[in-house]
């Protein structure tokens, strides 16, 4: 029983907007399965008193004051955009719904 199914890989590819061919899904499903198994070995040695790690540094509460910092000009902000119109980033037709 693989750790990740072929269908799950295809689903993730869809969510990530990756246009994978059928043979690519097969190929990646096998690779991802190995990766998950490898990571899964960590779970075998983790004791109950060790919380899952999300951050490598034991640091909390890094804040900045609510003070203005210089931002980019609209021109600079748009300079790297493939397309711009009326001071805005222009993107192709959106299929689907507002989030």
């Amino acid at each position, binding site marked *: 029983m693989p750790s990740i199914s072929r269908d799950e890989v295809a689903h993730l590819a869809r969510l990530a907007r990756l246009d994978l061919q059928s043979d690519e899904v097969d190929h990646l499903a096998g690779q991802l399965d190995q990766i998950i198994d490898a990571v899964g070995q960590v779970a075998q040695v983790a004791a109950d008193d060790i919380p899952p790690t999300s951050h490598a540094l034991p640091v909390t509460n890094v804040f900045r*004051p609510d003070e203005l910092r210089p931002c980019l000009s609209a021109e600079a902000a748009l300079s790297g955009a493939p397309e711009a119109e*009326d001071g*805005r980033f222009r993107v192709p037709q959106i299929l689907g719904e507002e989030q």
Partner: protein
Amino acid sequence: MPTITTLPSFDAAINRFDPVMGMEVHVELGTTTKMFCGCSTEFGAEPNAQVCPTCLGLPGSLPVVNRVAVESAIRIGLALNCRIAEHCRFARKNYFYPDMPKNFQVSQYDEPIAFDGWTDVTVDTDDGARVFRIGIERAHMEEDTGKSLHVGGATGRIHGASHSLLDYNRAGIPLIEIVTKPIEVPPALAPAVARAYVTELRELIRALGVSEARMELGQMRCDANVSLKPTGASSFGTRTETKNVNSLRSVERAVTYEIRRQAAALDSGTAIVQETRHWHEDTGETTAGRVKEEAEDYRYFPEPDLVPVAPARDWVEQLRGTLPEPPAARRSRLQAEWGFTDLEMRDVVNAGAVGLVEETIAAGADAAGAKKWWLGVVARTANERGAGIDEVGITPADVARVQTLIGEGTLNDKLARQVVEGVLAGEGSPDEVVTARGLAIVSDDAALGTAVDGAIAAMPDVAEKIRGGNMGAVGALIGAVMKATGGQADAKRVRELIVERLSG
């Protein structure tokens, strides 16, 4: 699909079904800068003039949390009687939609900063005011999205658009999302309770000073979840989420509509689909949006670029000390101080004028006078202009000054109204309007005498009656003098002058 004309009435719907509601409200914080970068949050700038590498998600940029936003989140949580997390993380909500340039939104997922609270709301019923306790599931921090402009389709809708234009000035502005626990109240009151909750929340947010919470500017946005279950059943039905219901009145209407629509569907044996729905202010209907289970695969994971937030308990207690008087307690106190009836107080609250009336009284006006102007001509003007009652150009100090001028005898009610209208029209302060329009009461005997003589001459029969002792006829002459002086005569002095002349 049934249209609104074929739906059962609300009463018929709640005869067979019990609604369960859940409200999700987003509040845009009034911080100076964004959640994770120092860009301005000022409304109305040129597109993309308030962006930087961080809020544009450019490579190599790193977010840092705005301390004031965290303080605001904790204060909101405390004001909603929530517990404050001792340790919580941000999470990435991944989705592909160009309103976030990063392809994810930084939010909180399984570790909200505030959770498990409540707030009480009051609803008017036929049996008087009733209080309902609304459970608060959580309040968490996140960032706002950019604004999309859809080009080429009908009326700016996404459907049929050829392309879209993005302005990221709003992307990254701090948001607090406040989620209720399931709300189950007497079915007939459900829409009113939903509205009362959002009203209460708005007042609380304003009292905290963390946001102006102006719904018409999108500073406070409401999503309403509604499901139905057969009357008396215990397990919940399938819910829908009506998005962006952005006025108090719409909250009530949208909940009412969804209850009727779902009742019609269930009556006809149609299953409710778990989906988002769009609210249409113009028709009062909702239409289907995206289906939830397909779209909501956000693959949340802890945000690696932000360290956890672990508010020290003494900091939390210090923030608790900054909480304002709870709105409900404040309303009771002010009502007693002002001597208003429940009905009068409710009118003031519904007009959003509690603070304004309070400031007007502090500036020297009496309670009845303060209420009269704000709820009268000022509220009507605000309504006509589609603006807030505090945005039509008259201040509490102006209203108090008008009341003072009445008290001094410089103005009568009719003239005072013209003065207020002048201030509302942008003609200056009350004193400036009085001078410019020449509105002060005329009590100068020479000027009044001429008008009195004129009135007596014009109505000899009335004058004769008064000479004969019929004092009831004096009113007719006073009326004539008032007319001749454009309502500016001092009516009391006019009466004295008439009596002097006709009883000699």
